[in-house]
């Protein structure tokens, strides 16, 4: 079970009126049964936000002894190098991977393919056809997510993170039709994201969506014991989880 944290201009971004304080989150994440953390920089159009984001990543990596994937605005091998040096284990790329898939290959050759997570945002369009969206979900692309996922794997991606734009933030459950479209065409792990709101959603993400791992973004819905309880629930449904 992966916890996804979105950082805006150096602070944890939440959709409710919480006081933004990422140290609070670090303390929580460390004591939870979380298996992995993904930190995404979702700052738009601020020049000095990078340094703030790097500081957040450094703080997390020094305090959380679980795997850390980091992304948001990664466009070059230099960005890979910078983020790995400050404690990231894997790098998440989205828009740049789509526009310049050679970067996937270069990064995989330099850091190993397990280091390269290609994140795909997808949305249902006309005639129920899914399309890839880049640039924070604002730009529709020509490829369907399953073709792009396959292509990304061929370029050397180590994992695919698939997010349903339609379901993200709804708490209605994952888009498992979308998820299984992806997991059926690739042999690398698929992390399913967007929409989880109850424990059964995690089970469905694995069983129906055939994800290798399930992501949750709305961390404020969970208290210390509820991640553990969610995992116990999954275990009872015969899913292998770390308790």
């Amino acid at each position, binding site marked *: 079970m992966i916890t996804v944290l979105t950082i805006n201009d150096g602070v944890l971004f939440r959709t409710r009126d919480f006081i933004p304080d990422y140290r609070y989150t670090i303390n929580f994440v460390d004591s939870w049964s979380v*298996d992995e953390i993904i930190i995404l920089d979702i700052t738009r159009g601020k020049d000095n936000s990078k340094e703030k984001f790097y500081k957040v990543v*450094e703080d997390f*990596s*020094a*305090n959380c*002894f*679980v*795997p*850390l994937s980091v992304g948001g605005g990664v466009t070059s091998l230099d960005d890979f190098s910078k983020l*790995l*040096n*400050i*404690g*990231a*284990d*894997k790098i998440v790329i989205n828009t740049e991977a789509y526009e310049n898939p050679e970067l996937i290959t270069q990064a995989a*050759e*330099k*850091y*190993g*393919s*397990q*280091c390269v997570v290609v994140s795909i945002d997808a949305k249902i369009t006309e005639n129920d056809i899914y399309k890839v969206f880049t640039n924070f979900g604002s730009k529709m692309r020509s490829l369907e997510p399953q073709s792009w996922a396959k292509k990304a794997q061929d370029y050397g991606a*180590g*994992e695919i993170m698939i997010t349903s734009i339609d379901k993200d933030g709804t708490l209605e459950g994952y888009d498992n039709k979308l998820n299984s479209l992806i997991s059926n065409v690739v*042999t*690398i*792990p698929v992390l399913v994201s967007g929409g989880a709101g109850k424990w059964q959603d995690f089970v469905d993400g694995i069983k129906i969506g055939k994800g*290798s*791992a399930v992501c949750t973004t709305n961390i404020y819905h969970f208290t210390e014991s509820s991640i553990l309880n969610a995992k116990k629930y999954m275990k009872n449904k015969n899913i292998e989880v*770390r308790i």
Partner: protein
Amino acid sequence: MKISIIDYGLGNLRSVYGAIERIGGEVSITNDISELKQSDKLILPGVGAFADGMESLKKLGLIEPLKELIIEQKKPIFAICLGFQLLAKESSEFGAHKGLGFIDAIVRKINRNDKQIIIPHVGWNDMIKVQDSYLWKEIPKDTLFYYVHSYHVVCNNKRIIIGKCHYGIDFISAIEDKNIVATQFHPEKSQYFGLQVLKNFIEKK
């Protein structure tokens, strides 16, 4: 106790550093040979490709000094993931490459006979103790550790194997060979018991 994390430009140095700091060791990240010489114990971390790792060690002029410190002077070293693989004689990752050759082993890709098996092997998995080791002090049976790799180490000398894992095939999860210990999993990413393994290394007399 002075611990040096060998900085050769690849890997999650920050989290290893954080882990040792949390345990309470005096730790530095360095590729300065005199500093490495002065430390009591070494850590060779690593994430990345084998050839780049060797190339980088070579460029930094670290291969001979490491040989002197580890093989001749028997300084304790803990090698992690790619660090573990670099200790081997050679690897087939992206072509054939020579390794440090500190252990009698080679590196091979996880063989995907089983179509269900996804490569790279990423996630929490078993560490099955096959031999007692000081690294396993206070590590319960069936503890899970975090793995991220596409390649694995094949030891010619079976006596050094202390832990195994199963993922499509049985592969070596940990070794202890005199002053050298190494794990394919990432102790610095394996929460409580990962830190315990590192603590065992640091506290070993």
